[in-house]
């Protein structure tokens, strides 16, 4: 499971955890997030701008 970080704020999307509040169940792959996904903290960075983290396992 990989992790992806927002380039503007501290939000990290962890595929293992998903993001329940926004409707993404744990285990939801980043690739499976909708194309209009935006950072749920700052809302000003889009899915295609997220950065894959090196420490993903």
């Amino acid at each position, binding site marked *: 499971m990989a992790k992806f970080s927002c380039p*503007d*704020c501290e939000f990290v999307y962890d595929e293992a955890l998903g993001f329940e*509040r926004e*409707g993404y169940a744990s285990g939801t792959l980043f690739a499976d997030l909708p194309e209009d996904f935006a950072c749920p*903290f*700052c809302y000003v960075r889009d899915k295609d701008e997220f950065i894959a983290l090196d420490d993903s396992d």
Partner: protein
Amino acid sequence: MKSVTVDSPAGTITYTDRKRWLWIMSMVYPLIGVTGVIAHAWSEHEIGVALPLLLAYTVIPFLDFALGEDLNNPPEEVVSELEADEYYRRLLHITAPLHFISFFVAAWWVGTQSLSWWAMLIMAVSAGMASGLAINTAHELGHKANMFDRLIAKIVLAVPGYGHFCIEHNAGHHRQVATPEDSASSKMGENIYAFAMREIPGGFKRGWQLEKKRLQRRGVPVWSLQHNDVLQSYAMTAVMQIGLIIAFGWIMVPFLLIHNFEAWWQLTSANYIEHYGLVRSKKDNGKYEHCQPHHSWNSNHIFSNLVLYHLERHSDHHAHPTRHYQSLRHFEHLPTLPNGYFGSYMLAYIPPLWYHFMDPKLVDLKHVQRDADKLNILPAKRAALIERFKLKSGDSAGDTSVAAAA
């Protein structure tokens, strides 16, 4: 004075936030509504209820003029320490109940005194003005990742009856800001009254749609008090306001209607002046460029910033929405409002005056350089404004037809 000390590659940096204790002004400012009740009780003259309006629209603009601007920024190296300091967050938490106190005191005064119609009207407007500040408190808290802060934001939005604000503002306004599509970004040539007709219903609609979409993704019912954040806040509003009608009778109906509208109008006023005429360019992929500091009108006027949790440093806020109020920065060469928000609102309320001061500033901004394509212009006034300000335009051949089509 409390200082923050951090070690950086450039050496040890010590920073003292000189505004640290002054932020208490933002915490107590929502009690401005109560000053009218005190002035009335003390002076035994009904005109005392007008004190909050006098303070907001004459004393504060004068202090902004007299005390001027604050250009101080915290060094970037200390920002994480500054934002981790719980003191700043606690002030916001204490502000929340003060909004309820301000609202209930005003309602109680109107419900128990035999005020003349004009004094009741001023009380309702003053109370609404104070409750509009609850949107400001919710604004700061609603941008945080912390669920407790977001919960307080939702609760405090029950005071102005604006429960849809957080989702509408974060996922709606921030995503679309400074584009013609945003119902909360005003256009050059659009007066504040026409803007309100677009911004208020637009906000309710977009907030509801975004919350509906979120709940549908989660697979839970939309019409559910258990899940729907907007409905939860509206329900609190309904309980409070129906309770007041039961407690104090029908006098509460006009009071609450005016109060609610005035609270919403405070947000409308802020939205109107914050992005007037500014637009983000589209990139080759059809998406808008990121919001830069020059896509918001900024004000560094020290006094009104100190009573509004730095809301007026709006340029940095939109460029980096999760940045905390205590660390918002000033930048050089920003679109700059002529006064703080309260003084600027008064200009906006008189559209010819607003256009007179703001349109020349807008077209001569460093990143605009009299290019109509770098402005968010009301389509119906596009041709006339291009002509009046001698603007460059990529669609100059089609100017007349654009205006005619609108």
